[in-house]
C-alpha cells in the first residue's frame, strides 16, 4: 500500500507548529521549550533563521550537485558545527551578524550560479560554514554542562534538517525546478548582502 507523502508532511508541519507555540521563556540567544537542554538546542536551530537558512541552502546546493556531495556534507556539516560550537563554548567571544550574512551571500550565490564545484570545495565550504555558525551558537551557551546538551541538540537538528531538505530536493530533475531553486538562491544571496550591510553599519555606527 502506497503511503501518501502529504500525510507525513502534515504531521511534520503540525509537530513543528506545536514546538514553536509551546516555547515559553527566553534566555539570551536561546529558546526554552521546557523539555530539557537537548530539545532547547534542537528548537533553537529550527527557530533561528541565521542558522537554518545557510543549512537549507547547503542542502539545496548539495542536492543540485548530486548524491556524493550530499553524503559528504551530511556528516561534515554537523561535525564541524559541533566542533565550532565546542570552541565557541570554551572561548565565549561572539561575532556579530557579519558571518551569517556572509554565509547566506556565499551559499545563495553558489546556488544561483549552479556552479560546478569540485567535491573538496563544497565540503570545505560546508565545513567552514558549520564551524563558524557553530562557534556563534557555542559562544552563547551557558557555562555549565547543559551547554553541551544544547549543542548536541543543535547538531542533531542540523543533521536532520540537512538530510530532509537534501533528500527532498535531490529527486527534482525538471528544468523548471532547478530554475526555481536557482532563483531562490539568488534571493538568499540578496538577503545575505543586505544583512551584511546592516551588520557593518551597526558595527561601525555608520549613518546613511
Amino acid at each position: 500500500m502506497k503511503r501518501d507523502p502529504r500525510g507525513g508532511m502534515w504531521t511534520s508541519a503540525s509537530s513543528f507548529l506545536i514546538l514553536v507555540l509551546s516555547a515559553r521563556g527566553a534566555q539570551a540567544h536561546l529558546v526554552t521549550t521546557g523539555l530539557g537542554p537537548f530539545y532547547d538546542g534542537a528548537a533553537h536551530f529550527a527557530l533561528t533563521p541565521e542558522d537554518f537558512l545557510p543549512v537549507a541552502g547547503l542542502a539545496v546546493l548539495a542536492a543540485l550537485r548530486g548524491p556524493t556531495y550530499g553524503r559528504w556534507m551530511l556528516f561534515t556539516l554537523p561535525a564541524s558545527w559541533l566542533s565550532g560550537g565546542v570552541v565557541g563554548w570554551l572561548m565565549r567571544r561572539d561575532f556579530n551578524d557579519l558571518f551569517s550574512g556572509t554565509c547566506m551571500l556565499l551559499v545563495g550565490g553558489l546556488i544561483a550560479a549552479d556552479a560546478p564545484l569540485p567535491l573538496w570545495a563544497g565540503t570545505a565550504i560546508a565545513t567552514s560554514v558549520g564551524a563558524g555558525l557553530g562557534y556563534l551558537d557555542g559562544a552563547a551557551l551557558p557555562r555549565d554542562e547543559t551547554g553541551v546538551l544544547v549543542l548536541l541538540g543543535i547538531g542533531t537538528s542540523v543533521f536532520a534538517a540537512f538530510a530532509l531538505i537534501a533528500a527532498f530536493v535531490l529527486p527534482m530533475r525538471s528544468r523548471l525546478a532547478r530554475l526555481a531553486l536557482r532563483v531562490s538562491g539568488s534571493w538568499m544571496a540578496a538577503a545575505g548582502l543586505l544583512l551584511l550591510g546592516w551588520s557593518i553599519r551597526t558595527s561601525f555606527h555608520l549613518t546613511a
Partner: protein
Amino acid sequence: MMKCDGHKLAYLGCGIGAALLLSPPAQAHIVQGEAAGFLSGFQHPISGWDHIIAMVSVGLWGAQLGAPAIWLLPITFPVVMAVGGFLGLMGVPLPAVEIGIAMSALLLGAAVMIQWRPPLLAAAALVGVFALFHGHAHGAELPPGESGLLYSIGFVVATGCLHLTGVAVGTVHQWSWGRRALQGAGACVAMGGVYFLTQALA
C-alpha cells in the same frame, strides 16, 4: 515529473516560509528597538507606487522577452538591488536617486510598450542599473533599529513577488489580445514614470 517537482517545491517553500514567519515570536534574542522583522521588510518595497510599477514592469518585460530573460531579469533585479541597498546602508552617496527610480518606471514601461527586444545582456544591464537606484533608496531609508535577517528576507521576497506578478500577468503575451494589453500596461507604467519624474524634478 514537472507536476511532482512543482508540488515538492511548494512544500519546500511553505516549510521554510513557516520556519521564517514563526520564528519571531519564539526568537529569544530580540534586542530592544528591533522591528517586527519579516513583515516590516515585506512592506517596504510595496510602500511606494514608483517602486511597485517599476518592479512589476521588470516581470512584464521579462515575460515579453521570453526565456532566458523571463528568469534572468527577476534574478538580476533583486541581487543588484541588494548591492544598491548595501551601498545605501554604508552611506555611499548615489546622485539623483529619485530621478533614477522615476526613469526606471518610464523606460521599462516604454520598453514594454514598444516591445523592445535588445540583446539579453543589454536588458539585464539596464534592469541592473535601475535596481541600483531602487536598492539605494531602500537602504538609505532603513530606519534606525530596523534590522536583521528577517527584514532583509521580507524585503527581497516582496521584490521577487512583484516580479513574479509581472511575469504572471505577462504570460498573456502568447495571445494577440494579450500583446496589445501588455503594450497598454507598458504605456500606463511609462505615464506613471513621467508623473514621478515631474515630482522628482519639481
